[in-house]
Every structure is written in C-alpha cells, then in structure tokens.
C-alpha cells in the first residue's frame, strides 16, 4: 500500500479517510505528503519571562557596589602612595571597620552558627601573622619589575575579579575572583614605600574583597530592606573617594554606575520583546523535578 503509493503518486488519487500522523499504518498518501496539519504542534515563546524594570535595577545594585568596592580600594592605595594617609591611620580605620562589621554579622547570623568563634579568631590570627611576616618580602618582590607592568597586571586582575565575581550566589566570594583581587592588591602593595604600608594595604584588601561580600550577603538574606541602602552607600563612598584623588575618574565612575544601574536594565526589558524561539515535540524534554532526593 504505502509501497505502491510512494512519492510521485498524486495525493488526491484515492483520499480514503483523513491523514493520520502515524508511521505504523500504511496510508494512501505519498511519502512526501504535506498535510494541512503539518507543523500544527509548533509553539512559540512559551515560558519567556517578563522582567519588571525596577526589580532588575535593584538587582544591578550588587554589580554597581562591587565596582565601587574596587574604586574604594584604588582610592586608598593611591592616597597611601601619595602619602596623604599614613599606614597606622589606615590600620586603625581597618580595625574600626572590622569589629562593628563582625558584630553586625554575628547579630544578623542569629542562633545557628556553623563555625565556632574560636575558628574565626584563629583564621584572623593566621592572616595577621602571615601578612605581617611576609610584608618585607612582598615589599622587595616587584622592585625589579617595571611600574607599568605592575599596574597593567593589577588592572587585569581587578577586571578578572569583577568579571568572575559570583553575582548570583555571593555567599563566600568565589575563589578565582578573590584570588585575582588579592593578587592585584599584593602587586599594588609592593609598590608602596614601607613594609607597614604593605601590611595595611593587604589588610584592607582582605576587608574589602573577602569580608565585605560575606557581610553583604548576610544582609541580603536577613534584612532585605537594607541592601539597596548598603549598595548606595558603597557607591557613594567609591565616587566620593575617587573624587578626592582624581575628579575626572569620579565622573567616569558615576557615569558608568548610572549606565550600569539604569540603562542596561532598560535595554534588557526592551530586547525581551523581540524574543522569538520555536518549540515543538522535537525539543529535548528537560527534567524539571529535583531527582537528587533519590540520591544523597
């Protein structure tokens, strides 16, 4: 049947019953028959998310504050490089920021804490000891390398930090981003005049790049309302600080932040309208439910 009515046999030769989309039954239609029901199961744009503008803006706050964190760090470094700030001042400032921050962190943490305080203390001690011990070495580390090289390296590393920062789940900063930031800070710190400067710089690096994201994450999950304020604060700090050393840079930074927080979300929401993707029975079915409950 299907044999004697292959392609070439006219479809309207013997229209016996409607065409069915089955392979097992031999039908009186040619193999290349195109039915009216061809492509009827074609679907377009199922499950396309519609974003709300302000929600997106709120999310971009995280990116903005990370950028301005870098700005803050650079500000501090340049201040110290130009000698406006002494290392001791910075160290005191660091302590002054670290203790309340830790307190806040603990307070928000509530009852359930996975690490004992002793561990925190221990790691803090380790950190201090190592940084202090190594700071003379670090001091002499890059003296033979030219300054431009060092700047370029640290710029690249900071960029890598910004790009690889885990914005989606910033619980502890991802290792690559943190390492990149620390590498950059070591490079920068090694250009500073004294060993104590290096020490101060590194401690600030730890503060800005390692501890602050943890605190911010804690803030986001415990006190949702406070997140925009914190982000705004950091951004303001970044712009202001940079303004103190380099006004043009401050202008650029503020522009960048504005584009980042306002223009980009607008673009996303607009482009979302032009989305057009095809779905149909040929799509690979994805497994929605969580199967990990059977394992583990």
């Amino acid at each position, binding site marked *: 049947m299907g044999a004697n009515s292959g392609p070439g046999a006219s479809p309207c030769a013997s229209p016996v019953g409607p065409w069915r989309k089955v392979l*097992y039954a031999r039908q009186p239609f040619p193999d290349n028959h*195109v039915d009216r029901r061809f492509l009827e199961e074609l679907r377009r744009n199922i499950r396309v998310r519609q974003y709300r503008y302000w929600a997106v803006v709120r999310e971009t706050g995280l990116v903005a504050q990370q950028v301005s964190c870098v700005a803050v760090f650079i500000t501090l470094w340049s201040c110290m490089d130009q000698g406006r700030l002494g290392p001791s001042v910075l160290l005191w400032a660091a302590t002054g920021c670290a203790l309340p921050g830790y307190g806040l962190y603990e307070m928000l943490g509530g009852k359930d804490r996975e690490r004992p305080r002793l561990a925190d203390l221990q790691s803090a001690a380790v950190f201090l000891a190592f940084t202090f011990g190594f700071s003379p070495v670090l001091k002499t580390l890059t003296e033979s390398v030219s300054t431009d090289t060092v700047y370029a390296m640290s710029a690249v590393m900071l960029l890598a930090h910004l790009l690889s920062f885990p914005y989606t789940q910033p619980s502890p900063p991802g290792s690559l981003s943190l390492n990149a930031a620390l590498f950059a800070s070591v490079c920068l710190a090694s250009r500073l005049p004294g060993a104590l400067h290096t020490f101060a710089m590194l401690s600030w690096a730890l503060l800005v790049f390692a501890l602050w994201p943890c605190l911010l994450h804690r803030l986001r999950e415990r006190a949702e309302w406070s997140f925009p304020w914190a982000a705004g604060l950091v951004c303001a700090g970044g712009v202001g600080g940079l303004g103190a050393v380099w006004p043009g840079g401050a202008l650029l930074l503020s522009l960048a932040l504005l584009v980042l927080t306002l223009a980009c979300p607008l673009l996303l929401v607009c482009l979302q309208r032009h989305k057009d993707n*095809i779905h149909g029975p*040929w799509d690979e079915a994805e497994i929605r439910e969580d*199967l990990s409950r*059977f394992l583990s």
Partner: protein
Amino acid sequence: MGQKKRSGRVHPPTCPSETQPPAAARTLDPPNSSKARGFGREERARHRICMVSDFFYPNMGGVESHIYQLSQCLIEKGHKVVIATHAYGNRRGIRYLTNGLKVYYLPLQVMYNQSTTTTCIHSLPLLRCVFVRERVTVVHAHSSFSAMAHDALFHAKTMGLNTVFTDHSLFGFADLSSVLTNKLLTVSLCDTNHIVCVSYTSKENTVLRAALNPDIVSVIPNAVDPTDFTPDPSRRDNSKITIVVVSRLVYRKGIDLLGGIIPELCTKHHDLYFLIGGEGPKRIVLEEVREKYQLHDRVRLLGALDHKDVRDVLVQGHIFLNTSLTEAFCMAIVEGASCGLQVVSTRVGGIPEVLPDELVTLCEPTVSSLCAGLETVIARQRSGKVPPPADIHSKVRTLYTWRNVAERTEKVYDLACRQPVLPLPARLQRLQSHCGAFAGFIFSFLAVIDFLFLFFLQWLHPDHLIDVAVDASGPHSCWGPSFKKKAKDSNRAWPPGADTRHC
C-alpha cells in the same frame, strides 16, 4: 526470500560478513531465482548508489545498521550499492561484506566522536575517485552529525550527481551550538534533491531547521528485522515481574528518570525486578541508587550488550521501559514489542507515531507519570489481561520491514533522478538566496573553489584514466564469469591494513 537468507544478513557483526565470499552467498540466493526477479522488472531504472556516512561498521548504532540493511535490500532489488566511510583504526581501504557489498574505508582524519574533520575541499579527490570508478548516479548521505556526509553532498553537487540525504536525529533551536549546526544543515540541504526523514516529527524538525520546502522531504521510517526479535515466553520467570531497559546510559536517554523510578516502584512492589542493558556515563547514577536502597538482587546492570544478545535480554522480561528525553524514531520499543513485551515509553519526539496505542503506554517524561503508567501495566500484567507475546509479535512483525523501506527509498531515488542538478550559477544563486548573506557568501565562495579544484583534478588525472571498478554487487551484475575472478580476489585479500598502501 526464505528466513535463512534474511537471518544470514542481519547486522554486520553477526553476519559472516567479511569471511563470507559472495561465491558462498550465492548458496543462500540461487542465481536462477535472482535472474527471474531481475527479468521481472528489467524496465525499471537501475541506480548506482553510493551511501556516504561517517558511521558504519565496526562502529555500532542505529545509523550503521540502517545503512547496512537498506544497502542489502537495494542490492537484492538489483541496484548497485557501495558504501563510503572513514578509516577505523587499521581498517583502511576496500572491504567486501555479504552479497559483495563494497565498503570504502577512506583515510580521512577523525576529529570528534567518529566524525571527520571537514574543510569542504580536501576530501574531494578521494570521493571523486570513488564516484567515478563506481559510475555512481545517486549519492545518499546519512546522519546530519556526519561531516563526511555533508562533504559528499557538496562534492556530488559539484560533480553534477543527484543527491539524497537521510536525517536520523532531532535538534532543538535553543542553544548556540544547535544554531550553528542548523545553519550548516541549511547550507548543505538547500540544493539537495531529496531528503528522507525517519518520522513526521523529524520531518517537521528538519523542515524548520533547514528552511526547506516540505514537498522534497519524504518520511520513511526505520525498520527492524522481526525474524531476530521473536518472543520466547519460556524464558521469562512468571513468579516475578521483570522490567527491561536496553539503551545507552546517557542523559538523553533519561537515565536520571530511571534512577527516580527504580526506588519508587521497588518499595511498592516486592516481586518487581529490573534488567538494565547498556553502558555509559550515567551508569554511576544507577549504581548509587542500587547502593542506597539495597537493591542489588533486584536491579541487574548487564553492561554493554552486543546486538545479537539484545533479544536474549528482552525475552526475559514482561515490560519494556524506554525513558528517552528525545527520539526521532525509537527502534528500541519496536524491538521490545516485537519480542512480545508490554512497552512503556515517554511521549517525546517521534515516539507517539511509532506504535499503535494498544501496543504501547505513553507517559510524560516525569517520574510520577512514568510510575503511574508502569503501575497500570503491572496491574494489567498481574490480572493477566495482556495479550500473549505471540499475538503482539504477529501484530508488530508486519509494521516495519526493510523490504518496504527499500521500496520506498527506491521511489525516492527515482524522484531524485528525475530532478535536475543545479548548474553552478543557479547553485550560487540558491545559496545566496537561501542561507542568509554571510553564510551564503562564504559557501558560494567555497562552492566555486570546489568547482575549480574539480577542474584541476580532472586536468591532473582525467576520468578516463580511472579504472572502472568491476561490479561485485547485486545478483544481476554479480554472478557473471567476469565477476567470479574478482570475487575470488577481493575477498581473499583480507589482512587488515595489508591490502592498503596509503601514502
């Protein structure tokens, strides 16, 4: 066409392919009968077909067996068929399989899972040599994953041969890789004479991907050889209910779902046993499940199966389960049903078209739905309201046969040969108009280069210097005295690698 002949010709590894000279094959297929058949349809056009694909024996899979079986049936219908694929290890050069089916293992560089590297150009000399010396009229390329197939289409159009392409797989439109692949498919199919898909879903998919006119796309399903998937109720143990799964253990086959189903059902039914054949990266999932729920005695992982062992595994079970997430045409469930099992499968891709509803239970690709489906089938099995395996087999055996596939493919060839092959200017126009400015430009450039290269080759090594191959295929050209010598030679020279000096 007795059973003996068919069973003698199933699937390259099982058939006595290489060792059996065509002279011996003649005992299975007496010349007088073949002559009679031959005279029967002398008037019909004979084609000289070259099947091109990266995937062929010793590699195993759906495409491979499809090519092999189709070629055998076409030879039996009096066409001349040769197969071109790339060299596997030291299996290089020319080999003969059953009935003098000639296979060219061409020394092309393999890039990524058995697909050759493609520059659209470098494979021209070898393929041209094959096409010319075998006097090929139709080039039939298989599987959109195979770079060699696309190259062959490209060169065949350059040489002015008719082209047919069979697509065996489905593709999404979501991610970047599929976007690129679809663009390539568009390019290589836009001036192909005819396209064959294995199911209507696959046809829709291909038409969308390659932006084709649906009239030049035929649907010809795969087939299974019912004679080597026969039921055998004595093998199954009716004191318990056995669920059989035979598939590669990869994500696309939904092994994660299976990992969810096993504990669900095993906790409910205590006489339920799982028999899982196949190998793959997802095996670890099943092993973990088995560990966690202490099911070592009830879930048996058989590992990789040879094709000849599949039937022995199938007949031990009551229910055949298929959890694929995407399928163009699922041969596994047909094989399962042909062995008289109750088939439970996911409703994805072309699967709903494959079996009538009384033979298969379709479910959504979720653990809960599959479990529900299995529950009903198990209940039916318990109450004994299932038809006996022999009936199921007798229903299935007539559905998909290679002979039918061959007949329909033959018609496709006739159709393709009636169509003209585009000359270069028209082809360039088609490319420009069809596949966008950028890709169109690039590939029309490549087409011109290919054309010039062909000219160069024809000047360097003219066609009349290429010896016309002595036909060793097909019952009609095959049993002449001129053939016997050849047959003797060619199937004598089997030492692997030794019969090929590729410099």
